[in-house]
């Protein structure tokens, strides 16, 4: 970094020493760059300001004027519950798989295949969410119906599998599974990067002591990548919280607040609720939906900032 700074200064000195027209060009160009930077900050401030100003009327409105005749808090609470439940379920499923996939690519598969395999995992991130939604409702959902029946019969005593099992597959479990597939590449990419950077001396040290491949992974790779896995998991969680279309298509919603993952009656999520209701809403209902969007924005912001904070702290070490 220091070398960059000195060359920059030298360049500026030379430029400054050589005539007004050049200096004008430099001024215009550097101001344009600064302008772009400021525009982006302004844009982000704009997001908060416009959502606040358009959402505010719903925050102060009486219950009778709002959709479903509830106060805003009563309106948003079940949605927030559904959002967190779906995202947590997705993260719970995706994180172990993503970590294993990252381990496979970096430490199990032959090194010359690593690039191709990594590219395959990244392809999952390239597929539009609408397609995940269609796949979830037409392909995965029907396949999961017998599985959910089995869960109800054998594990029905656990509240998650209380049933009655849905016959259409439009359940929280299926939505969580599809969300898990969608966030897997995000978690896996972060984990992969960390695992690949495990210091050679640690790995070789373990191997020299006679450790097997799994022991090497368990004692050097996993501890080394632990905080990256946590931050990757939180980034994935953030993505799952805001994911809209897959949930909108798959979940049959009833507004119920329940931990039952396999029944027909599910809580909606904030994002899905906006997608379902916004096109047909008007007046204060629009303001209420925008206000729920603000709540979603806040939840994802906190999650993502937590993840970035963990990454930053780790880089500082």
């Amino acid at each position, binding site marked *: 970094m220091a070398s960059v700074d000195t*060359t920059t200064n030298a360049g500026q000195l030379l430029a400054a020493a050589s005539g007004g027209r050049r200096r004008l060009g430099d001024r215009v160009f550097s101001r344009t760059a600064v302008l772009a930077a400021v525009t982006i900050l302004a*844009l982000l401030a*704009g997001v908060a300001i416009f959502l606040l*100003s358009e959402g505010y009327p719903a925050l102060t409105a009486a219950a009778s004027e709002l959709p479903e005749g509830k106060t805003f808090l009563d309106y948003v609470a079940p949605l927030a519950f559904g959002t967190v439940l779906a995202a947590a379920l997705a993260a719970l499923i995706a994180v172990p798989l993503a970590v294993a996939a990252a381990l496979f690519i970096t430490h*199990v598969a032959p090194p010359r295949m690593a690039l191709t395999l990594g590219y395959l995992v990244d392809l999952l991130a390239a597929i539009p969410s609408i397609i995940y939604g269609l796949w979830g*409702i037409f*392909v995965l959902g029907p396949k999961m119906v017998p599985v959910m029946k089995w869960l109800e019969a054998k594990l029905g005593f656990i509240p998650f599998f209380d049933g009655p099992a849905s016959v259409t597959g439009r359940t929280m479990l299926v939505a969580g599974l599809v969300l898990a597939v969608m966030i897997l590449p995000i978690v*896996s990419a972060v984990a992969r990067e960390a695992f690949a950077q495990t210091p050679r001396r640690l790995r070789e040290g373990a191997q020299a*002591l006679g450790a097997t491949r799994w022991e090497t992974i368990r004692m050097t790779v996993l501890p080394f990548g632990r905080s990256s896995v946590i931050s990757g998991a939180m980034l994935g969680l953030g993505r799952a919280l805001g994911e809209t279309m897959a949930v909108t298509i798959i979940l049959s919603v009833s507004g119920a607040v329940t931990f039952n993952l396999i029944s027909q009656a599910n809580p909606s999520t904030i994002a899905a609720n906006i997608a379902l209701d916004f096109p047909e809403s008007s007046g204060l209902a629009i303001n209420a939906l925008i206000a729920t969007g603000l709540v979603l924005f806040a939840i994802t912001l906190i*999650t993502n900032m937590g993840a970035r904070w963990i990454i930053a702290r780790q880089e500082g070490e």
Partner: protein
Amino acid sequence: MESSVQSLGQSAPSRLLAGGLGTRRRIVNIVMTALIAGAFVLAMLPLFSLVFEVAKRGIPGLSADFFTTDARGAVGGAGGASHAIMGTLIITGVATVISVPIGIMAAIYLNEYGAGRLRRALTFFVDVMTGIPSIVAGLFAYALFEIFFGPGIRLGVMGSVALSLLVIPIVIRSAEEVLKIVPDHLREASYALGTPKWKTITKIVLPTAFAGLVTGVMIAIARIVGETAPLLVTTGVVDSMNTDPFNGRMQNLAVYAYNEYRSPGVMKQAAYDKAWAAALTLIAIVMILNVAARLVYRRYKTEIR
């Protein structure tokens, strides 16, 4: 962790001397390796299922009509998606025009000029921006335009604004990475010749980074071309061709697929076929963009020695 290191440290050498691994350790190793490989295969199953199903279910809906006619007044499963394809191209195109200059200039700021508080703030908030849920970006665009045009407003350009918000951070991140690997000795050589900084950037740094910048932009565009949620609340749903992003509703492929699924009408299967055909077209666009991006990079990248 420490205890396991210790136990290994004590036991492994003696076992090695004794002539090999203990049975239990060997079995654990095999089981865990198999589990890791199995988890990878399990994680990849959805990808193959998805590509296979989209191809299988998408092909029946593909026809000349699908690409050449719109859906105005279409009944009985007739009508195509030309308006949606055109809308996708226009909305994404306008988003590209908005976001690429801002994104690249911001990356230039971060890499060539940035210092102090503004640089730190921008780095932090670009990270924040990557985490904005796409539906929130749509709501922002709606709230922004509603103030000027009144409630219920739907325009193609609103969708472009929402998509820009999503794609700008991706463009900045990739452009920053590419600019970072342009070696400093190129800049120094240019300064040594008395070239001003802005000319060094435009004539030396950007041309050197060109292939990487184009590749990054194409991959970023591929990430937003299939966005549904932000367009659902900004560009609306419409059956006929509209090529003016500043006037009236504009259909796009993702919302088209969602709508065919959600309101199939009487000819249910025909509508579902069209939804899958739109999905297949979208995947094709995404894949073409990704492959083309890689080809561009391979063909035009600057060899730096």
